[in-house]
């Protein structure tokens, strides 16, 4: 890994850049963070990234900011947290400040509307590609229980619209139960 100053600069620039292009909600930035820090910089491995997302999700607040905080903390402690928050918050801060002055013109501009419309497809494709990647990673672990959890969690979230917090809590309970079964098997 590079020296601290360089790491901080890279952390700030990447969170700033990702946040500036995060259209369509928090999960988009998660997929972009994964792309940058796992696949490109190799600062975090994929399993760790998923753990960090789970952490980001189990706290209140904005997913994009939480996601940046966990990555920042993992890379550079509390200074990393500050850098990544600043990087994530500044782009919307600047953009909203500008847009609120030109709101009328901005809203009625057909070019902007079309551009944003098309970008939605791109956002969906980015998420789809990352999900495919990660789901294959889970399948490759060859744990039957993990595959079942993935399918059931998907059905709960997508079909039954169950709150994410409940899914997280249930998984924690399953995980703890799993440990007890595992230890008992070890003992006997």
């Amino acid at each position, binding site marked *: 890994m590079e020296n601290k100053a360089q790491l901080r600069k890279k952390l700030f620039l990447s969170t700033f850049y990702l946040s500036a292009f995060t259209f369509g909600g928090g999960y988009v930035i998660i997929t972009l963070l994964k792309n940058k820090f796992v696949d490109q910089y190799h600062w975090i491995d994929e399993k760790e990234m998923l*753990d960090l997302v789970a952490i980001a999700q189990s706290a209140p607040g*904005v997913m994009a900011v939480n996601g940046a905080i966990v990555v920042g903390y993992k890379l550079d402690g509390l200074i990393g947290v500050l850098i990544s*928050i600043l990087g994530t918050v500044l782009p919307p801060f600047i953009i909203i400040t500008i847009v609120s002055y030109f709101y009328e013109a901005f809203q009625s501009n057909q070019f902007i509307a079309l551009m944003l419309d098309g970008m*939605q497809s791109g956002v*969906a494709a*980015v998420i789809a590609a990352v999900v495919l990647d990660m789901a294959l990673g889970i399948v490759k672990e060859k744990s039957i229980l993990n595959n079942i959890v993935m399918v059931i969690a998907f059905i709960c979230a997508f079909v039954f619209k169950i709150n*994410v917090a409940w899914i997280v809590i249930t998984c924690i309970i399953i*995980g703890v139960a799993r440990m007890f079964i595992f230890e008992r098997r070890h003992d006997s």
Partner: protein
Amino acid sequence: MIYLQLFFSFLQIGLFSFGGGYAALPLIQEQVVTLHKWLELSEFTNLVTISQMTPGPIAINAATFVGLQVGGIFGAIVATIGSVLPASIIVSALAYFYIKYKNVSWIQHVLSTLRPAVVAMIATAGISILTTALWGTSTVSLGTVRIDMIVIFAIAFIVLSKFKANPITVMLLCGVAKVILFYVTAL
């Protein structure tokens, strides 16, 4: 003290908005429109529209927007800090415990059960974005699907997963493609 009010209002929004994105909307509305009357309902609707059209989480957008209206640039800064402060403390604490204890056996079991669920939840978020992309505001059925958007999505997906293209470049090109398709078909 308007700055303190802004700060505490957005602190509450940051503290109690679980589930992200639009889950925070009613909370923001209550603080900003009903309780403090900083925005009219129509202005609040504008804020939601701006948030849909610009990058960035809606809670941050709201903090900046409302802060600007009520207390200028300093108000915007105070409100934004308020909205991210609770999460920064809680998430840092959780991350600290994670890094310290992640090799403890029961935490490992819990984490390995959480991972597939996280993938599932990201997938769910992805599908709802895809649905808006493919159908826009019309009801979801085979007849109303927007063909140009399917084509853009499919090409983007292939370019991303086969050729590992840069996602942000792909997103921007999708926007450009839509603009071009629109003007070409209008000819």
